[in-house]
């Protein structure tokens, strides 16, 4: 019993830290990106990450329903990661289509002079007095990695809550609790970023990632303790249908 509780707590903490890391990897442009004057997708961290993570939860819950009992934790978590990666990929691809063919800008990074992946120079393509445009290659790769991390984290929380060898909540309870914990971590991470970020190559990433992960650790421990208390009452177990 005590090992199960500890395992659930550890999985919630890992999931929370991974979701915080995911938000730091997103190419988020905010309001300036809506006018194509900043690199990234034109929305807030929370909206982007919640969209990706909920898609991940859908794929994860579908894959978890393949097993009658005891779903494989690692396979379900990976399928959540794949769902979130696909969602991030489509979002960034369509955003780039609109930026390139609609707004007529060249995707380029505003924070680095040379793309660390393709080794192509960025500064010539950046319109003066803007902060980059669109989603360049390095931001795209970073966004896909963020989708992997966030989807894996969200689905990991979901699968330990739904699996009958761990918490054994009903499917809907596990899904909504996983979403609640994910959102709490994602928003604290979004406050840590404070607006826009381009991806792992952004100087902001290196400067703030440690604070972000520390905060995610503390918030996830508390969320995990609350979930463990709910498990200890024994009333949620069994998933009454």
């Amino acid at each position: 019993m005590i090992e199960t509780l500890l395992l659930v707590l550890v999985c919630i903490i890992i999931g929370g830290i991974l979701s915080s890391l995911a938000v730091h990897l997103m190419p988020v442009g905010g309001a300036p990106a809506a006018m194509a004057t900043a690199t990234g997708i034109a929305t807030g961290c929370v909206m982007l990450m919640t969209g990706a993570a909920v898609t991940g939860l859908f794929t994860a819950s579908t894959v978890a329903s393949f097993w009658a009992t005891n779903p494989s934790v690692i396979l379900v978590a990976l399928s959540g990661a794949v769902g979130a990666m696909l969602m991030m990929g489509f979002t960034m691809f369509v955003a780039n289509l609109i930026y390139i063919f609609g707004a007529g800008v060249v995707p380029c990074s505003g924070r680095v002079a040379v793309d660390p992946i393709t080794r192509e120079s960025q500064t010539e393509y950046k319109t003066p007095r803007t902060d980059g445009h669109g989603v360049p290659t390095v931001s795209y790769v970073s966004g896909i990695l963020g989708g992997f991390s966030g989807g894996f984290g969200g689905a990991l929380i979901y699968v330990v809550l739904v699996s009958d060898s761990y918490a054994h909540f009903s499917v809907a309870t596990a899904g909504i609790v996983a979403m609640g914990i994910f959102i709490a971590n994602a928003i604290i991470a979004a406050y840590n970023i404070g607006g826009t970020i381009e991806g792992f190559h952004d100087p902001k990433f290196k400067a703030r990632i440690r604070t972000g992960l520390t905060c995610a650790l503390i918030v996830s421990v508390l969320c995990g303790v609350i979930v463990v208390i709910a498990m200890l009452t024994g009333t949620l177990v069994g998933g009454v249908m």
Partner: protein
Amino acid sequence: MGEEEAKEEKAKPKEEFKLSFDYFNESRLGIFALIIGALIAIFPGLPAFIEGIGMIIVFAWGADSVRKTARYGLGTGVPSIGVLAVGFGIVGGIAGIAIASTHFGTLVVGGVEIAFGVLAGVALLALLGFVSGNLANGDKFIDMKIPGLERGMTELGIAGTLAVLIETSILAGTYHITKVLPNVVNNGLIAAIFILSAFGMLQPYNTCLGADERRGRTLLMSIEIGGIASIILGIAATLTLSAVEGVPLIVLGAVVWVAYYRAYMKACMEEAYATPGTGLIKTLGG
């Protein structure tokens, strides 16, 4: 001339506007909403329309807390803090319901259910909100430099949990997990609860923010959204429980919505410098 006119414009709405939130300043509204919300939350068997009134008061408190913290600029938009409140609320609500479903979490006195257990969920989320507020504002952590963010996040944790709990009791009529799971969680209504509570808290300040934002006007909109939420929950309660519970809630919601929509539009018309009508929506005397 311009200055005098501007002064008159500013002084006018306070006198003409009848429903004032001057008595309910930020602290008084918080204490009032906490007491009323907690009292309504521990009696899940109350008629749905009384719980609807409690939900509207809790929404107003949440919207006031969002206003208090978001006016200094969060960097990620106002919606994030409202969604954070309900994200907390879902975790606390499920924990509170789980504790209330145990045999020591609920007392039955003369056939009336008194669910003290849910208050444990509220207290845990107050702690989580306080810790996250300290993380977000602490100079060793994120250092957002927003005055009163610790208090704001504590209040949002409590308000989010109370909103989720009260809405659950409207739809299930009890906190017993065998009723809550089929009536609220497993049929997906919990997702509607999530987004309705988030809108009740984040939408008022998100719509009204700006240089001439006024607290009374912003709170009018939160009560109006409470009315819309009551209508939606009333329809859902008619399906999950019975028309006896649902229909009075729908009527309450419709009355609140119409009354506060009129009051909000009137306040906007009076406080704006000029309001040209587009003809798309029939505005009141505009």
